[in-house]
């Protein structure tokens, strides 16, 4: 089966993920990649991402995702996302704390493209939110989201929880009221579990997820191609390789076909239930 046919049939996820970088201005307690200000950047690079993106479209992929690290601390991120969004629908995962006035002006062209910025917000109370994500995170997010929405940019809110099924309904409703008040409708609010990899594993948080539980979504990093955006995690400063597909990322057909072989060989009855967006 070709890559395009496998995407059409659902065997392969249609979205290609790019880990633009690994460094971040925050140090979240459950971060999959142990991202922090001082870690190695390991940038994939704007031209590399755009080139692989063009290949991905030709192969039949249907969407892009950009994550990190914090993508928007890279100067060229607005330009990069514009380039990706001109090819295919794109979602960028962000902590939402890097949108100063200059940055807001730079992302304005994204309003005309099929681009969403997916911003993390875990709790309706600032203190509890910031306990996991760092000081001032809540304030910066609730300031940034309306400004993005006002500019016509698609915004999603992602809430990451230890156990999404166990959350207090009242607390959940307050969170939903909050994102609605910021201009983000319910259909753009994603609630997902913490994955027990990276710093979450160190801190004994989250749910276990092997490749049997994850969607096969081609994920490119500076270290190679992975099975899922949950794959290129870091623990104890060491990159996890259990979900590495190949070090080769170009031509994109190579990791795409390797991922397809893996997806087709998954045991019958596999239970895919966890997505990053």
């Amino acid at each position, binding site marked *: 089966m070709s890559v395009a046919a496998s995407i059409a049939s659902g065997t392969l996820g249609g979205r290609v993920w790019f880990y633009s970088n690994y460094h971040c201005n925050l140090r979240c307690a459950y971060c999959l990649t142990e991202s922090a200000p001082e870690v190695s950047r390991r940038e994939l690079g704007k031209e590399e991402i755009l080139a692989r993106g063009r290949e991905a479209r030709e192969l039949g992929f249907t969407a892009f995702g950009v994550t990190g690290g914090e993508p928007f601390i890279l100067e060229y991120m607005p330009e990069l996302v514009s380039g990706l969004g001109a090819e295919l629908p794109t979602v960028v995962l962000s902590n939402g704390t890097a949108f100063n006035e200059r940055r807001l002006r730079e992302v304005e062209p994204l309003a005309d493209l099929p681009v969403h910025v997916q911003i993390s917000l875990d709790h309706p109370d600032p203190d509890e939110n910031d306990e996991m994500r760092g000081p001032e995170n809540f304030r910066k997010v609730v300031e940034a989201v309306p400004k993005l929405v006002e500019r016509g940019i698609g915004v999603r809110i992602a809430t990451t929880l230890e156990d999404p099924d166990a959350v207090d309904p009242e607390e959940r409703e307050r969170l939903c009221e909050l994102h609605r008040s910021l201009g983000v409708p319910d259909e753009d609010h994603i609630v997902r579990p913490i994955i027990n990899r990276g710093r979450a594993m160190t801190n004994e948080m989250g749910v276990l997820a092997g*490749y049997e539980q994850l969607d096969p979504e081609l994920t490119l990093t500076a270290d190679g191609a992975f*099975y899922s955006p949950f794959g290129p995690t870091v623990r104890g400063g060491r990159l*996890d*390789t*259990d*979900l*590495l*597909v*190949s*070090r*080769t990322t170009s031509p994109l057909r*190579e990791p795409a076909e*390797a991922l397809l*072989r*893996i997806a087709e060989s998954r045991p019958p009855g596999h239970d895919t239930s966890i997505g990053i967006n």
Partner: protein
Amino acid sequence: MTQAAASAPSLVPLVEADQAPILARPYFPAAGPASPLTASLAHVPEILEVALPFVGRVLGPTALDARTKEIVVLRTSALMECSYCVQTHTAAALDSGLARAQIEALRGEAGIEEAFAAAGERALIAWVDEVALGRGAVGEEVTVRAREAMGDPELVELTLVVGATLMLNRYCTALRLPTSAATLLRLAEEGLA
């Protein structure tokens, strides 16, 4: 030729089973550690899944008998002073039926003429020596002896075995792959450490 023990740790971390990439997992044993060759190649799974079947096919069972192949592999490895390969293939040579004296001769610790009576095997070893260590074409006299001792398919395959072994010798030596504890224990018990 002396074989220094692999005392330094591996130059690259050996990938453990729980970190084995999906495409590399079939090459990891269900229990116990993978070979250092497998565990190092697992850093690049797309190479591993080509290299290990290639190595397994060239060095593993084919129309040629295991004893002949081990003569080639052990001799080449000794010439290249690859302690990992010499130790690993000393054990394999014992399993293939090579006598202790022949193993010592192949390792350069005794004379070939005394250990190998058959002219064909001596011709093979001379061929291996020139292919492994020589530069340019193999000398005429060694070539004539090899042609007399081997048919075309044998000459092709055994020359490829030398080449594959040379690749592994330099790979294992440069990356300082450690010989497995089980192999070292066996060699100690056999007095061939």
